[in-house]
């Protein structure tokens, strides 16, 4: 099968970062109260993941591997992602105030998001090339957006309902997330992707 297709489907459904790999749970639970803020967060994650994939690939390939420092990739990637997000923020603040206000507070928030770091590390682990890394970054972000928007939709409907008191608020959110995660596990093995 086309390897790019495999990466795309794998990143969105089969190996969904949040629901199957349990990365980025913090923003997943924190910013999923309303659908539109969830969507904003999702777009910010797509944005950061795609550029982070490219840059971490380049640094890994041309710096870390060259010096035999692959074991330093985690700390190096954290550094790269943090610096990258900050510089991107400065740039879009200057050139696209509308995009800046749309992404708003979410952009700096995901600087230290483990899903972003996870994408960078998995790209290296799976030995993706530049294009594959980029695709994986974009569609892992799409998968994250899908998951967080779904949960936000569920939460919006649960909150006004008569939930038993001991489950009200966070517990019922966790249960909803768990059911969502179980539903997503049905995708495993789709098109033979593991």
């Amino acid at each position, binding site marked *: 099968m086309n390897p790019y297709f495999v990466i795309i489907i794998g990143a969105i459904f089969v190996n969904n970062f949040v629901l199957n790999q349990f990365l980025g749970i913090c923003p997943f639970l924190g910013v999923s109260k309303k659908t539109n803020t969830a969507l904003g967060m999702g777009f910010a994650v797509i944005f950061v993941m795609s550029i982070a994939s490219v840059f971490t690939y380049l*640094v890994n390939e041309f710096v870390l591997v060259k*010096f035999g420092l692959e074991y*330093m990739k985690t700390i190096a990637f954290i550094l790269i992602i943090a*610096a990258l997000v900050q510089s991107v923020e400065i*740039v879009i603040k200057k050139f696209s105030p509308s995009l800046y206000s749309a992404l708003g507070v979410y952009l700096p928030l995901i600087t230290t998001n483990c899903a972003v770091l996870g994408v960078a590390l998995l790209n290296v682990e799976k030995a993706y090339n530049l294009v594959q890394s980029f695709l994986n970054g974009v569609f892992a972000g799409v998968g994250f957006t899908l998951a967080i928007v779904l949960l936000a939709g569920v939460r919006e409907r649960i909150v006004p309902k008569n939930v038993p008191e001991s489950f009200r608020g966070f517990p019922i959110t966790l249960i909803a997330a768990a059911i969502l995660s179980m539903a997503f596990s049905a995708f495993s093995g789709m098109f033979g992707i593991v």
Partner: protein
Amino acid sequence: MLLSTSLPLAIVIPAAVLIVIAAVFAVLLAFLGRKLEVKRDEKVVQVESLLSGANCGGCGYAGCSAFAEALANGKADLSACNATSKANKDKIAAILGTVNDGEEMSFVVCCNGGSACEDKYDYHGYGDCASMELLAGGRKACPVGCMGAGTCVKHCDHHACSIGDKGYASIREDRCTLCGKCAKSCPKGLIKKIPARAKVYVACSNHAKGKDVRSYCKGGCIGCGMCMRNCPEGAITVVDNLAVIDYAKCIGCGACVAKCPSKCIKTREE
């Protein structure tokens, strides 16, 4: 392979590589930060420094800085802010090139009923004035009487509202930040703005005829006009059976307070 097996180098090289990466990013960030600095509108900065900084949200914006931005863009009106002093509002108006016609205000509760006003029924339900209001317009016989169940107390973040022993709400001015949440929350709309310099105010909001008011409330304005006749400045008129003070004329002599048969014109200190 550059990495040496000797221990000092095995530490030095990775550290050096990381330091170089970090330094590159540091320079890049510093460069970008300097080169692409977005100048905050000078106006917004000045306006924000003059606002009270209470961040009470009374204006409807997320805080003083959001309000300052809206002001500078001409989207908001200065009068929406209750917390900023008149002197500072004048300065802001000068910066914005507008005129500040609002003067410093304060909030008073315009009801003198409480226990002096009869109850229509005993309320044993859940909640506060807002829920009581849903049940036949509240428990008081007066349609605009303070029910004393403390919706304003609940909405005040600064413990300025309280229900006194006379059964109606009052506002402690030393604690009040003028955010206006109490005024918005009162289902009867009894909390009103008067100029901060005002010495007296009409503590009643009832427009019913004097005889009707008398039948259920000992403290309500009956529209007799004693205040109007005794005011040396002609600052008081009776409109729809309720005394109204024109604060542009009022000198705060207190003649109306002394003459009012219902004692519903009060001095502010009370």
